[in-house]
């Protein structure tokens, strides 16, 4: 018996072989979502043995909250939040959540289609999974999707004063929008201490424990980045 399993009698997991591209045994969570959230459920499909569930953007936090909390689902691990933009300009942009249920040994891919003509916004799942914090920041940085309810939605890979747009969008030129010299000029004008100062590293909470001279220098506004 595998410890921690929600299904003690289940056989030990084995790597599936010869999976069809489409079709096959769906994840039972897909049918459960369709039954419980009929209005918000769009469709589901099985691709290479993995189940994709398409849902309405308005129901994201409700359905993912249920997948996380419900005793029959127990999706306790969010492994990725990302997005897909297709080459055809009229096709909607998709936001993808990769959910994993460790007790049931299930994998579920939840997708939402966002119309590109409207502002790209979807609910944050940060209140449910804390790991969504940086994943959603990365998705915002690369695709420009706003995750409403995110506690600190700012760029994570590119620097914060980056002004050229969202690099993984299809309308973004591979080499960026500005000339090389302008890109370099903007990059060199970043003040590294501005971001990575002692204050930024939450020394403020331990301020009283610091030596007296360091407290005096920090209180005087001195940067101690180097």
């Amino acid at each position, binding site marked *: 018996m595998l410890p921690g399993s929600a299904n003690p009698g289940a056989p030990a997991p084995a790597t599936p072989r010869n999976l069809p591209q489409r079709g096959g045994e769906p994840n039972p969570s897909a049918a459960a979502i369709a039954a419980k959230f009929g209005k918000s459920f769009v469709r589901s499909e099985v691709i290479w043995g993995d189940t994709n569930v398409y849902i309405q953007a308005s129901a994201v936090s409700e359905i993912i909250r249920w997948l996380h909390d419900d005793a029959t689902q127990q999706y306790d691990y969010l492994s990725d939040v990302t997005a897909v933009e297709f080459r055809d300009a009229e096709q909607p942009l998709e936001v993808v959540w990769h959910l994993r249920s460790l007790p049931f040994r299930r994998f579920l891919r939840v997708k939402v289609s966002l119309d590109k003509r409207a502002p790209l916004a979807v609910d944050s799942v940060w209140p449910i999974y804390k790991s969504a914090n940086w994943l959603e920041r990365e998705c915002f940085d690369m695709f420009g999707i706003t995750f409403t309810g995110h506690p600190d939605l700012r760029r994570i890979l590119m620097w914060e004063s980056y002004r050229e747009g969202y690099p993984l969008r299809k309308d973004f030129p*591979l*080499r960026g929008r500005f000339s090389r010299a302008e890109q370099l000029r903007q990059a*060199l004008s970043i003040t590294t201490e501005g971001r990575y100062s002692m204050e930024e590293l939450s020394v403020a909470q331990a301020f009283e424990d610091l030596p007296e001279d360091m407290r005096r220098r920090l209180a005087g506004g001195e940067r101690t980045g180097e």
Partner: protein
Amino acid sequence: MGLSHTTPTSAMFGAPHQESWVTTKLDFLVNWSRAKSLWPMPFGTACCAIEFMATAATRFDLARFGMERMSFSPRQADVLICAGRVPFKLAPVLRRIWQQMPQPKWAISMGACASSGGMFDNYAVVQGIDTIIPVDVYVPGCPPRPEGLLYGIMMLQEKVMREKMSDNTIRNEMEPDPESGLYIPASRIDELSEPFGNSIQQTRSGL
């Protein structure tokens, strides 16, 4: 004492058990002592740094050239070895490290990415670190083998050996343009980073 000896070897080193002395040019002596004890500052960002580590390890043994002491503080370093691609986000960091190094200092650009951006001709990667800091030796390769880096280091040593104390202009710190922060004009940076045979509007989807 020394002048009484006639053969060159004994003039150089003196006779055994006697006081020894040497005559040479001051330039040669200073350059020799600098070139044979360059302390590298490793700035490794990618797979080139793995080759750099191999160069420093036992089989290729960078210590043979007086470099066994890696200087992880730029303030004690002589030569900056930039091994790997440099994204734009790292450009001010590399510039800052270079400015923290005291004169005399040299820079080696190791590998295709550091020298030209390499295969990463995209929005995120600096197209050659010579747009950020002045570079003395470029080592080609993707990544260069340790022999390649050693050859680059030996070329740098040759360059150091040719310096003259009478010419102190090479010791002048390059000051970037206060307006743009660049060493070289913007038009030349654009020209240098132009792709070969491609237009600047090139994208895969034609959008």
